[in-house]
């Protein structure tokens, strides 16, 4: 058999246009600002192995296994298809020149894997056509989108053509190493040789043309992820992905992001890595309650905007390629999108970067925030209460100033714990619990200022920077090394965000410390305090943002003697209370209340007590319960539950 004279130019053109498309897109990625994502290659490779090749997150959902099969089939068939193209140019070359001992196992593998690929493509097609989950679609794409069906159809065609071609060429009795092709050939038995030759040739051309079309469709569709997902996993954020980069406050700088070129190149690469799988959309509390935000759309709009080379505003009226302001303010920064994305796209930091632009360059934000910002700047707490009142809660105990060199733990009480009368009960519960365990702790009193969590998530980096520097300086001055806090927002900010200020602190959330004290035998609650049926609500900033799931549960177990129940959506899949990301200080104008959703989810299980580990969750769930007329369900912090158990002694 000879090479077809048309094939070489065809292949040449196809490869050239493919390369050009890829170049075009990668060129667009380089528009982005510099960011170092090249450090720690070992760690990065390990991530690629687990997230890309291991498909770790893909597999966490049903049908993930389908993608796993397809992914690995693709990798193997990459070799087969390269050989196919090679032999198109040089018939008789490539793998066919290998000795049988190698060739036969390979042929066996390709044959089997092609069948697997065909099956999983069929399943995927059926899923999209007949039982698509709601999150596959949204206002700009549907599960039965032409693009998705076309791609799946192409893959199926490739596999079918492959089998037909092989089958038609198999001489009777041949092909024991290609069981599937052989089975097909049995069907064609008895056809004249010329017909078989025609079938083989046609299949070969169909396979060749579809393959080259597929190659060219990749960079021009959401299937670009086939090319970018693996690099995207490599360049993932090795540090806390929700911690946005610092900004330099210098004359002439731009602040935040209002155009694609202000994003980092990795942000732009993210947009080409999105496969529109919809998992982020499925988990997002804002999207789930009918708000404007859809994290998937933020990434999609970024891609569209980038492809149109910034011809549209990045932030503006709600249309494809533009994120609307309302959507950006809807985000609770709960991190569900971050934790579920199979290819490690960083949605949340993009939203914060765009908020930064709105707040810092345009001073455009929901009006409720004006008060918050001024209160934070002037009185270092969200309510604008006099800083001198901060240490007032301690008056029921004895003075407990943090003494440099003497006190072990700084108890960073936080704003809610200092001023909110409900959260103050948690503060006292923790204080007495620590005393019971004989822990040396102290507070900064009126010198403590807000950690700055809300202002940072809201994009007011300038104010956050001032607050963070203030706190860091104070910590250094007082020689603070270890910090305990009862608020996950303080906890995460001090632990993760303050690292950017060059201070290494040992920060523990009170759930971790209490659990540790229980393990060490320093806290014993011999008479368990029954709280009835207990459900534990994961706080986003403790759980998802800091992977702390077992400690709070262990505390409840130690205090009540029973394992707490879980919400339907729990741990990594937990559902936000609605207060994170500065939403605590904003009106919820659109859609259902996030806290109502969460409370309804709890009430299905008829709990007596909902345990929380965060003052914001406390407020949101208590409010939600009252609104649902379910005040009889108590909301308690884990510290309160422990303190109650200790007092039963």
């Amino acid at each position, binding site marked *: 058999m000879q090479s077809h004279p048309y094939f070489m130019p065809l292949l040449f053109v196809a490869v050239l246009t493919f390369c050009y498309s890829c170049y075009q897109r990668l060129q667009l990625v380089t528009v982005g600002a510099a960011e170092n994502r090249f450090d720690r290659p070992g760690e990065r490779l390990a991530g690629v192995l687990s997230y890309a090749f291991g498909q770790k997150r893909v597999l966490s959902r049903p049908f993930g296994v389908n993608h796993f099969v397809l992914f690995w089939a693709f990798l193997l068939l990459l070799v087969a298809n390269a050989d196919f193209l090679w032999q198109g140019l040089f018939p008789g070359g490539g793998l066919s020149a290998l000795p049988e001992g190698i060739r036969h196992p390979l042929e066996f593998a390709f044959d089997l894997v092609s069948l697997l690929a065909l099956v999983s493509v069929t399943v995927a097609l059926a899923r999209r056509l007949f039982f698509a989950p709601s999150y596959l679609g949204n206002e700009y794409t549907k599960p039965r989108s032409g693009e998705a069906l076309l791609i799946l159809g192409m893959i199926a065609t490739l596999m079918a053509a492959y089998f037909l071609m092989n089958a038609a060429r198999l001489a009777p009795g041949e092909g024991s190493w290609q069981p599937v092709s052989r089975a097909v050939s049995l069907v064609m038995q008895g056809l004249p040789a010329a017909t078989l030759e025609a079938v083989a040739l046609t299949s070969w051309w169909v396979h060749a043309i579809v393959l080259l079309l597929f190659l060219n469709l990749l960079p021009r569709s959401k299937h670009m992820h086939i090319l970018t997902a693996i690099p995207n996993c490599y360049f993932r954020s090795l540090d806390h992905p929700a911690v946005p980069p610092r900004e330099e406050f210098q004359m002439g700088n731009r602040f935040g992001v209002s155009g694609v070129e202000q994003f980092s190149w990795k942000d732009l690469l993210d947009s080409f890595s999105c496969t529109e799988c919809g998992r982020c959309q499925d988990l997002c509390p804002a999207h789930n309650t009918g708000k404007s935000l859809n994290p998937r759309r933020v990434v999609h709009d970024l891609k569209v905007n980038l492809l149109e080379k910034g011809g549209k505003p990045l932030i503006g009226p709600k249309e494809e390629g533009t994120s609307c302001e309302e959507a950006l303010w809807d985000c609770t920064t709960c991190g569900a999108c971050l934790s579920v994305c199979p290819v490690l796209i960083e949605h949340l930091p993009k939203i914060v970067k765009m908020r930064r632009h709105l707040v810092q360059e345009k001073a455009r934000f929901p009006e409720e925030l004006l008060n918050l910002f001024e209160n934070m700047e002037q009185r270092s707490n*969200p309510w604008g209460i006099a800083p001198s009142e901060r240490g007032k809660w301690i008056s029921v105990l004895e003075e407990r100033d943090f003494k440099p060199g003497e006190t072990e733990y700084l108890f960073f009480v936080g704003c809610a714990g200092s001023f*909110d009368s*409900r959260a103050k009960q948690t503060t006292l519960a923790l204080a007495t619990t620590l005393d019971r365990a004989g822990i040396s702790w102290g507070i900064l009193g009126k010198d403590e200022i807000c950690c700055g969590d809300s202002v940072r998530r809201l994009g007011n980096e300038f104010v956050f920077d001032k607050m963070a520097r203030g706190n860091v300086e104070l910590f250094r001055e007082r020689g603070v090394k270890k910090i305990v806090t009862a608020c996950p927002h303080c906890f995460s900010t001090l632990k993760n965000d303050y690292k950017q200020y060059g201070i290494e602190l040992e920060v523990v959330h009170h759930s971790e410390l209490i659990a540790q004290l229980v393990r060490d035998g320093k806290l014993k609650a011999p008479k368990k305090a029954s709280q009835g049926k207990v459900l534990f609500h994961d706080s986003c900033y403790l759980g998802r943002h800091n992977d702390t799931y077992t400690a709070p549960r262990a505390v409840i177990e130690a205090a009540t003697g029973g394992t707490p129940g879980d919400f339907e959506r729990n741990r990594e899949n937990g559902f936000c209370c609605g207060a994170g990301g500065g939403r605590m200080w904003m009106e919820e104008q659109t859609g259902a*209340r996030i806290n109502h959703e969460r409370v309804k989810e709890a009430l299905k299980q008829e709990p007596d007590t909902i345990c929380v580990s965060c003052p914001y969750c406390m407020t949101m769930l208590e409010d939600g319960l*009252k609104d649902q007329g379910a005040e009889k369900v108590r909301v308690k912090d884990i510290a309160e539950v422990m303190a109650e158990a200790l007092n039963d002694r």
Partner: protein
Amino acid sequence: MKALLVCEQREGKLLDTSYELVAFAERLGAEVSLVLVGTPAQAPQVAAKLYLADVNKYGEYSPELHKHIVLAAALKENPDYIIFPHSSYGWDLAPRVAATLRVGQVSEVVNIVDGKLEVSLCNGKLRRTVSPKAARAVLTVQAGAFNYAGQKSGAPQVEAIEISQGSSALQFVGYEPAEKKDVDLGRAEIIVSAGRGVGKKENVGVIADLAKAFGGELGASRPVVDAGWVGHSHQVGTTGQTVSPKLYVACGISGAIQHLAGMKKSDFIVAINKDKDAPISEAADVMVVADVLALAPVLAEKLRAA
């Protein structure tokens, strides 16, 4: 000691603050004379000398001319104190008179303590006594601080007063009536707020009625607004309005910090709540432990009777 009291009228009506000046002067123990830019029909019913300038000639608001009228009266009376109400009329006019006479002014006197003038400082967080350096001074007196208990039946000895200055660069265009807005909590002097403790939408009317009896506005905590019992413009708190009325009555409001942050600047806070230890008690000047739905009608009735 002699005091010249500068009375005020608006749109044909003498304002009550004029009588409060008389009460204040009595507390000072001063011999009183009055000056008014108005009409004979508006003359304060006080048995004292009244210098009356014709408002039709000198205008409702023409501070330049009114200043000269006050100065003309002062020239005749030679008073130790020239006293204005601390009102939009008084605080606009008093400094002009003081500056022209080059004498000191003490603003918004709230009390007389041991013969000294007491004024408030820093939103009432502090008080101070102030004394003018010279024998003559201009004072303005806080509205409502001195109640006139006497009869409004004295006969003033009216003396018409004219000035030579005929025109003013300022041109008074007219009054604009108060906007018929749904509610303007930011400017309200009295706010009566309903909280979740009122139970249901139908009960909000009871609180609204109490607000009316107080002559104040109806406020609400966030849950009441969220539940749709009243509109958002009534919401007091961090995501609603921050208010600072002279009197705030919290009805069935437990006092979540978001609400406290919105009303803690109020001059005087009354909380009506069944729970004596509700967080609102920390902020309240008076904590009334009662069922607000039972108390409100009783209170409203007494207010109307008073």
